[in-house]
């Protein structure tokens, strides 16, 4: 048996040469990380969620380290869609990197406008729709926490996106039943699901005796949330056996990535680990390939969801 594993990953209508992608907000638009590894070698660069208008983000402090994790409250700082297209997307295209563009909005219309603006841009492998942001038209209720709001966003984005471009809905773990939201997004036209976004957390600075973040609460990421993320992937894979899943949350090495694949993810994103090791996405690709080979898998696809097999059924 050959120990060269076929690492191609299928995410709806796109096939990526590697199942390891960056995570939105943890790789900017790829350029900085290209100094540490070849960004064209990984599955795709997932860009920081972009909004219609330029956005300053929140005041500092924006982060606090926590045990095996961190809290962030960046507040979706970004240059707005026009500058994103003329600078970041252009750089990615010229560099030859596969690109998943993450979009975020405060209303259904804003998401639709973004999809429309991106519709005729070249070099976009897929859209990731960050629905973990507050709906300004619904007292700041997060889209991803309400099946109806989530489904209106996905519906609007699907309507304004060409059929050749898959759209992935990015889910929040801060819900009672993630499979419910997943089902709502798929029914509204999502081709795939990304999970998980950060989970809401808080740290109090015991010197100042005030919240450590200027934004008070923040999103928790890193290995601390990995078991929660694996559980989410498992539950959604069980509920929706055929929907492509991009799994993430605390992946720091090849075996972490393998857990997600076995739980049912078709590919993975690496986020916070990149802050510790800027070449983490490519390192994890290689570690995952080795881990699959060690276990006798000939292709990544064979391992997807393998942990769901019935007792006694083996390779």
């Amino acid at each position, binding site marked *: 048996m050959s120990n060269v594993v076929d690492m191609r990953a299928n995410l709806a209508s796109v096939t990526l040469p590697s199942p390891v992608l960056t995570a939105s*907000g*943890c*790789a*900017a638009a790829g350029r*900085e*990380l290209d*100094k*540490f590894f070849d960004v064209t070698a990984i599955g795709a660069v997932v860009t*920081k969620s972009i909004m219609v*208008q*330029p*956005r*300053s*983000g*929140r*005041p*500092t*402090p*924006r*982060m606090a*380290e926590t*045990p*095996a*994790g*961190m809290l*962030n*409250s*960046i*507040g*979706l*700082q*970004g240059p*707005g869609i026009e500058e994103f297209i003329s600078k970041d997307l252009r750089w990615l295209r010229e560099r030859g990197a596969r690109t998943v563009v993450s979009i*975020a909005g*405060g209303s259904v219309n804003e998401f639709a406008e973004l999809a429309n603006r991106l519709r005729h841009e070249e070099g976009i492998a897929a859209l990731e729709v960050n629905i*973990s*942001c*507050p709906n*300004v038209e619904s007292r*700041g209720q997060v889209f991803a926490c309400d099946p109806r709001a989530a489904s209106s966003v996905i519906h609007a984005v699907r309507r304004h996106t060409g059929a050749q471009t898959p759209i992935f809905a990015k889910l929040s773990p801060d819900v009672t039943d993630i499979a419910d939201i997943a089902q709502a997004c798929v029914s509204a036209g999502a081709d795939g699901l990304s999970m998980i976004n*950060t989970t*809401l957390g808080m740290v109090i600075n015991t010197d100042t005796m005030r919240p450590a973040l*200027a*934004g008070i*609460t*923040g*999103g928790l990421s*890193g*290995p601390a949330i990995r078991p929660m993320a694996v559980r989410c992937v498992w539950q959604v894979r069980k509920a929706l056996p055929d929907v492509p899943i991009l799994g993430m949350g605390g992946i720091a090495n090849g075996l972490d990535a393998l857990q997600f694949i076995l739980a049912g993810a078709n590919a993975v994103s690496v986020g*916070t*680990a*990149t*802050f*510790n*090791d*800027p*070449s983490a996405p490519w390192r994890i690709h290689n570690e995952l390939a080795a881990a699959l080979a060690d276990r006798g898998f000939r292709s990544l696809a064979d391992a997807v969801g393998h942990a769901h097999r019935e007792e006694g059924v083996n390779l």
Partner: protein
Amino acid sequence: MASKRFGKPDAGPIQVRGEVLAVRRSGDYYVLVFAAPGVAEATAPGNFVAIAVGGQPTAMLLRRCFSIHRVDTAGALGGTVEIVVDAHGPGTKWLVERAVGDPIDVIAPLGRPFSLPKDPVPCVLVGGGYGSAPLFMLADRLRERGCRVDLVLGAATESRLFGVVDGRRRASSLTITTDDGSLGTKGRVTDVLDRLLDDHGGQVIYGCGPMGMLAGLAKVAQERGIVSQCAVEEAMACGVGVCMTCVLPVIGSDGVTRMTRSCTDGPVFFGDQVRWDSVGTVPSDCLGAPVSATGGAQR
């Protein structure tokens, strides 16, 4: 005058496995010396390093950042780097407990360094606490160009000064201030700055230290119509420009204020670019600032 808005073009940081060569005390601080192949040659004064802490596996995910104090390209181990560490939290304590020969994972050189004046103008260098760490390399570069270098070191108390002996040797003059008067002039660095600038005609103020001190230096420079360059210290999660945690309000060449990354666009900024009074906030005229209370909430 400073010749360019910024220093030499970014050659790009590298990630290397370094080796600890020495850890020694200096007042309240530690000086950590390590071999880091390829870093010394590429370093300019004001660059910093990001070091992984806690060993593997660790619960401390984020690298710790330190100004590069000194480099030696002639070392037998292919270039050595020195940093000054104030060991107050778990990551910095772990670092100073390293033994000679221990490996450390280093990313360097990071950030935009200080830019050097084209002409041999007199310069005043001001360091607060361990903030003086990058100034000695800078003093050497400036003196090589024929600049007069007046050095000011300030701290709360004598044990929190760094580089007093070195400063005497490497600067044209050394002035010391402490808040409690335990060494030098009792007071703040800004209290002695005017006299130094009057006496020696300083054209550029370089500073590294606490935000309040930097704001003070920038103000003095602005009042006199001279240049200031300040190395800021903001909490950083990645150090390489991908996370947007390390921002502060900076006025761009187009006059527009943006929340600007201090890891890649800094840590050295011209004093008149930084909105010192607004650090820790988003000024309302900043690009993309929230227009209403409801527009501000997001994560």
